[in-house]
Each structure stands twice: as C-alpha cells, then as structure tokens.
C-alpha cells in the first residue's frame, strides 16, 4: 500500500519536467526540462504566495510555541485537580474537529451581518468587521483560529513534560528560599527545555505547510492576495485548471524545500534533544 500510494506518486514528479498531456501519458509527453519552473518564477503571484506561506506559518509556529508553554505553566499552578482535568479536556476538544466543522462555525460567528462576534463588537460601538473578507485581517484570523484549534494539544505535551520533573528539586529550592517565580525560572523551564526544543525543531520542518485544510475552507477570492498559500495554489492550478505539469512543479519545489528543512530540523532535534523517530 505504501509502495503504491506513496512511492508511485513520488515518481510522478517527473511530469514537472514535461509538458504533460494526460491522453499521451507520462511516457508519451514531451520533455521540456526546466521550462515549467522558469514559467512559474515569472508568475507575478508566485512570490506573493511563497511570502504568504512563510508569513502565515511562521506566525503560527511562534504563537503555537509560546502560548501553550504559558498555559501549561499556569495550568500547572492550579491546585484543584478537578479544575485542572476539566480545563485540559475542554481546551483539547477543538483539536478533534475537522476544519469543515470549525470553518462552518467560524463563518457563522464571524459573519459581518449576523455573526455573534460582530454583535458583541456592536455593543462596544465598533463597526462590523468583515474578518474573512478583508485581506488585512485574514492572515491573523488564520493564525488565531489555528491557535484556538491546536493549542490544547501542545499544552498537553508540555504538561506531560512538567510532570516528569523531579519533585525533589522543588523541595530543595523551597528550603533554599526560592519563591514560585524563581522555581519556575530555574527549575520548571530548564526541565521543559528538551521538549520545547523538540517541538520547535519539528515544527520547523512544517514551515511550508501553512495549513491547507484551514485556508482552503476559509479563504475566498477577496483574500487571495494575503491568504493564498502554496498548497491552495497547487490545488487550483492542478485540479481546477488542469495544468498538471505546472502544479506538480510547484509541488515538487515545495517537497524539495521541505525535505531540506525537515532533514535539518531532525538533525537539530537529534543533536539538542537526542530525539530519534524510531
């Protein structure tokens, strides 16, 4: 199965170098060398799309790294086990919803005419904002909703790292007169460091994945300028406009850069956190 559905598609990248016509098949199509690539580089919106991809995903990585750490630390300070468990359960929930469901919810609550968010803003006298239709706001809506969906998941991972810290360290620190803040800075954070480094490096490899499922379900032509990412461009070029070779060329470009980033980040992860996949 892996062979058929993962390896054969990998060889399919050759059509990136061809002027591919489905009826003639891979062997019958004309070879054009790098022509598809040079055509792409000349496309005016190509750079724009690459920029969007990086911009959106770097913000997502940064927010997705810092916020869960803070939440995990705060959550760890709670003494009531019941509240702790309930909070964990609730913040984790959106992670299991598909972007179809979440997209539907977002579209409803963010609607400029009838959405609850704009109703709330109106109470404070703010004009309705068209969150999903304004190119200025769209990337931030993406980052915000991505954070909303997934921060619970990362929080759990960090929380797991927190429980692995030896309690004797805290006792020793208290005897030495350290307060809660000092305990956090000198014991908790260093204790979490391997996991933090691990999560950071692994997300580095994902930087070209700005979140196809999310963007695809939330974007519209009005926000292509700031919201279009590599994967959505491949989809429109390939399956909507049937420019098979061009779309594959973009895909290959992305895979190539990703492969470099992933190898690099696994190397970092191995070096700093001694992490191996298997």
């Amino acid at each position, binding site marked *: 199965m892996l062979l058929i559905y993962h390896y*054969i598609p990998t060889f399919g990248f050759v059509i990136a170098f061809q002027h591919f016509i489905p009826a003639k098949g891979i062997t019958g199509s004309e070879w054009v060398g790098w022509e598809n690539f040079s055509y792409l580089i000349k496309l005016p919106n190509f750079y724009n799309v690459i920029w969007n991809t990086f911009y959106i995903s770097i913000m997502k990585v940064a927010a997705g790294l810092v916020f869960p750490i803070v939440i995990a630390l705060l959550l760890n300070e709670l003494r009531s086990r019941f509240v702790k468990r309930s909070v964990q359960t609730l913040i984790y*929930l959106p992670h*299991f919803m*598909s972007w179809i469901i979440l997209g539907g919810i*977002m579209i409803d609550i963010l609607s400029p005419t009838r959405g609850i968010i704009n109703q709330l803003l109106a109470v404070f006298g703010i004009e309705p904002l068209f969150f999903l239709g304004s190119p200025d706001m769209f990337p931030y809506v993406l980052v915000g909703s991505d954070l909303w969906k997934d921060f619970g998941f990362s929080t759990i991972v960090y929380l797991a790292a927190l429980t692995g810290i030896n309690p004797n360290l805290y006792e020793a620190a208290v005897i030495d007169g350290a307060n809660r803040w000092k305990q956090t800075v000198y014991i908790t954070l260093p204790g979490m460091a391997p996991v933090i480094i691990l999560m950071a490096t692994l997300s580095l490899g994902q930087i070209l994945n700005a979140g196809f499922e999310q963007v*695809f379900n939330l974007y519209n032509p009005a926000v292509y300028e700031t919201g279009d990412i590599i994967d959505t461009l491949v989809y429109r070029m390939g399956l909507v406009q049937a420019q098979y070779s061009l779309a594959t060329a973009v895909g290959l470009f*992305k895979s190539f850069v990703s492969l470099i980033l992933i190898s690099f980040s696994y190397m970092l992860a191995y070096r700093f956190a001694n992490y191996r*996949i298997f």
Partner: protein
Amino acid sequence: MVEDRSWTARTLSTVNYTFMIMLSLLCVLPLIHIWAISLSSNMAVSSGAVTLWPADFTLDAYRYVLGKPDFLRSLGVTTKRVLIGVPINLLLVVLMAYPLSKERNVFPWRTVYAWFTVFTMLVHGGLIPTYMTIRETGIMNSVWALILPGAVPVFSVVLLLNFFRQLPKELEEAAFIDGAGHFTLLFRIIIPLSLPALATITLFSTVGHWNAWFDGMIFMKSPEHYPLQTYLRTIIIELDLTSLGSEDAIRLAENVSERTTRAAQIFLGSLPILLVYPFLQKYFMKGIVMGSVKG
C-alpha cells in the same frame, strides 16, 4: 508544593483560575452557540436573540436535515469508511510495528524497512501525481479510494513501535521458552499490554476517517459518493445560493432558515466526536505522552 498564604499569592491564584476557566470556555462557547442556533427558530436567530441557549425552541432544523436523503447517504458513506477503514488501519499498523520494534540482530533489515516507512512521511509525491495514481489504479469513485491510500498511517506505526520497544524484553524471552511463536507472542502478550496505545491509534484513525473530506472531494466524481464531511463542505462552505431549489424555498418559509439548518448539520457532524471524546481521552493522553515524550 509549599502553601503560600500571602494576600498576593491568593489573588494571583484567583486570577489564574479565572483565566483558565475563561480560556476553556472560549474553546467550547462557539460550539454551544452553534448548538443553540440549531435548536432555535428562524425568527429568534435572525433577530439576534440567540446566544448560548436556544430561544423559541424547535426541532424543525433537525427534522429537515435528518429527512434529507443527501445527508443520510453521505452519513452512510462515512460510516462505511470508518467501519472498513479503521480495522484495516489497526491490523496493518500492528503488523508493521511489531517487526520494526525488534532489534537489528533479530530482524536484520529493520533499519532499511523503517526508513522505507518513515520516508513516506517526509516526502510526498504531491497532489497531482497522487491523484493520477488513484485514477490509474481504478478505485476512483469507490469507497476504497478513501481507505487504501491511507491504509498505513505511518505516524501511528511509529507511535506503536516505540511503545512496543519499551515493553520488558523478559516477557518475550519467557514466551519463547514456553514455546510461543511470534504470532502467539504478538496476539496473546504484546497486544493485551498495549491497550492504551492501541486505543490512541483507534481514536486517531476513527477521528481521521470521520473528519477527512479532501479525499472525498477530489476522488469522488459524483456527489452521491461524498462522505459526510465533504458533503457538509458543499453546503456549509461553498454556500451556493443558486442551488436553492423550489423545495428549499418552501422549507425556508416553514420556519427553517438556512442558518439554523446549517448549524444543525455542523452540530450533527461533530456529534460522534463529542460523544466518544470523553471516554477515549483518558487513554489518549496516556498514549500520546508515551509516544511523543520518551523516557
């Protein structure tokens, strides 16, 4: 932890509790809002009276949705893919993770096979070649196009093989001395010990199959083969107003607004997950912790 009873510490603690509770509310309120809309009448919704509790309670939206043949048919497709896909996933994951968890002196080609497996996780052929492969293998438009390409979830294989490796080696030796073969060992000893990890993988793969929509959208030519999420996409996201036929127009007049029916379908689409979530999440946390944070 030492109790700190000073005034500032207590204030901070209260602030923290409040913040945490607000945060978790933030995660569920949107869903509750949608639920409230789905149970309210069109009038109440459009006047903006509905926030977190249904106003002017009615089940019309649900009656309408559950009577729609499209909805039921796509629910059927999804049920089918979950019922066939999840067992296939589980079986293949277990059968792959077991040999890969062995040391190199037991299974000499282990590293080669392991890289062969993990490589697929790192490099993808891309959308178009995948699409062409599906078409060439002739499973377009059948439920197999939704099951076979993802039959081996590599992430789960890695999770499970790491779990297998931390089981005590002595168990294995004892079993072999008692005359057990590899299959007996796997099915009588290893699997019963791996239930938390297996529960995690089952949850992953069930949720994955339930939530998947993109494969349905590109591999299914005709809408009657769409799985539920793909179908939901066509009505929730694409929102094609021109497709509002006469039947829908009549419905609109009958107290069922498009917004309440959409809310009802969003809610029904997430309901199974809401139902299984509390039961599996206990296992799940254990499983994810063991798989991702080793040691």
